[in-house]
């Protein structure tokens, strides 16, 4: 028993998938080199994974992002924002995410490991690196 603990209730984590910028996967073959069946199996794995998380009460959100994009910044009072890019040399390109609500950091790691096992070329797991980031939560009511 402890006071001021929120550690044992649920916490949200972002599982971030990259097009570019993550360390190279073990089974690192571009999508367009897979067979159509391999690609279908991959998509099915991802959908089944999300459905399973909903069933376990751990699913919050999942979204995919188009690789196409641009950079935008403020350019001073009365001027339109500057639009630039996309820059081919940008080293980090996010492909999508899943948000999970889990009991522990260990569980977040377990699920990320499972997601990273999605099948790719040759029907073998991609072993893709996923970035796992905790969300900030509300501060506990009892702090002192």
């Amino acid at each position: 028993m402890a006071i001021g603990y929120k550690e044992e209730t649920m916490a949200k984590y972002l599982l971030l998938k990259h097009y570019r910028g993550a360390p190279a996967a073990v089974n690192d073959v571009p999508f367009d080199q897979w067979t159509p069946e391999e690609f279908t199996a991959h998509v099915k794995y991802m959908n089944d994974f999300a459905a399973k998380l909903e069933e376990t009460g751990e699913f919050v959100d999942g979204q995919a992002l188009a690789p196409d994009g641009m950079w935008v910044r403020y350019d001073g009072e009365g001027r339109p924002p500057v639009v630039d890019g996309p820059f081919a040399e940008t080293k980090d390109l996010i492909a999508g995410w899943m948000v999970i609500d889990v009991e522990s950091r260990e569980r977040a790691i377990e699920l990320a490991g499972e997601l990273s096992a999605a099948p790719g070329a040759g029907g073998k797991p991609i072993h893709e690196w996923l970035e796992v980031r905790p969300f900030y939560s509300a501060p506990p009511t009892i702090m002192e």
Partner: protein
Amino acid sequence: MDESLLRTLPPIVTSILVRRGANFAVAEDAVQEALIEAIRVWPDNPPNDPRGWMVTAAWRKYLDVVRSDTARRNREVLVESEPKPEPGDEIDDTLHLYFLCAHPSLTPASAVALTLRAVGGLTTRQIADAYLVPEATMAQRISRAKRTVSGVRFNQPGDVATVLRVLYLVFNEGYSGDIDLAAEAIRLTRQLTAQIDHEEVAGLLALMLLHHARRPARIGPDGRLVPLAEQDRSLWDTRLIVEGINILQATLARDRLGEYQAQAAIAALHVDAQTADETDWVQIVEWYDELVRLTHSPVARLNRAVAVGEAHGPRAGLAALAELDPSLPRYPAVAAYLTERSGDPVNAARLYAEAANAATSLLERDHLTRQAARLNAQLRR
């Protein structure tokens, strides 16, 4: 219409259905459906007898499920269609619901969700909103929880400590969603004190009231976290403080100390001081000693180090801190605070920045970042 009935009736009606022989999981679903209907219908069409209305509505929904199940199994249907008040309907045994929903076989998150729905009378959507997850996800969490306890006998006496832990977790969740979970936890704990005479139930209620009393002062008008020492004490709710202290004193007099009473005693000493400087830190340290003895909690030891720093000077506080595991949450924040008090702003600024990086909530991160920025600005002058 008395809106509070929408929260208080569901557990009573579930108990009535179970006593009439209904299975808990099915009865609880039926009551949830009746509740959703009541939320829709009552504002325009308030019933004369809300309890009778909800029993009837839930019983019908329960029979619908039983009939379709029975029809599927192709058996004779022999159920009474119009429910009448039955002997025993007036008995309030919602206490068993508290025990069932906090059953030790459940994970903390499942117990919290099931308690809020079956005992708290909240809808799945309200609970999902409070915990910032989709309704479908929360619905699954609740139905899994019900499957987990499906083998538990309904009227089995349980361990009150597990119930208190669940209520504590609800209270401590903070104020994120639309549903005020802290107020909800207080309501459920208050209701529990009416059902069971137990020092720690009273201790937990006192603890909640004394913390809830300070809530208006805890977040500044600009949304920032205001530390206890800097809070505007005139904003504290004196009515809640008086109630909390009265409950605590009556409970402590029974001389059966527990962790919630000890925490409430610490909270009481804080609200007892007119200004932060008048806080009786020596007594607070003694209560932390009790709390550490009762719980062996590392978080209690960490808070004790702060109290030691206030009572016996920052060096004594740092010495108490040195015995603890630096990987504890908020360790760097405590270290930064005590280091600044000991007259070492350079290291304190560094520790505050480190603490901001390790914070688990945005409000704490921002507070710690401001502390680091304040010291760094002073050092540049």
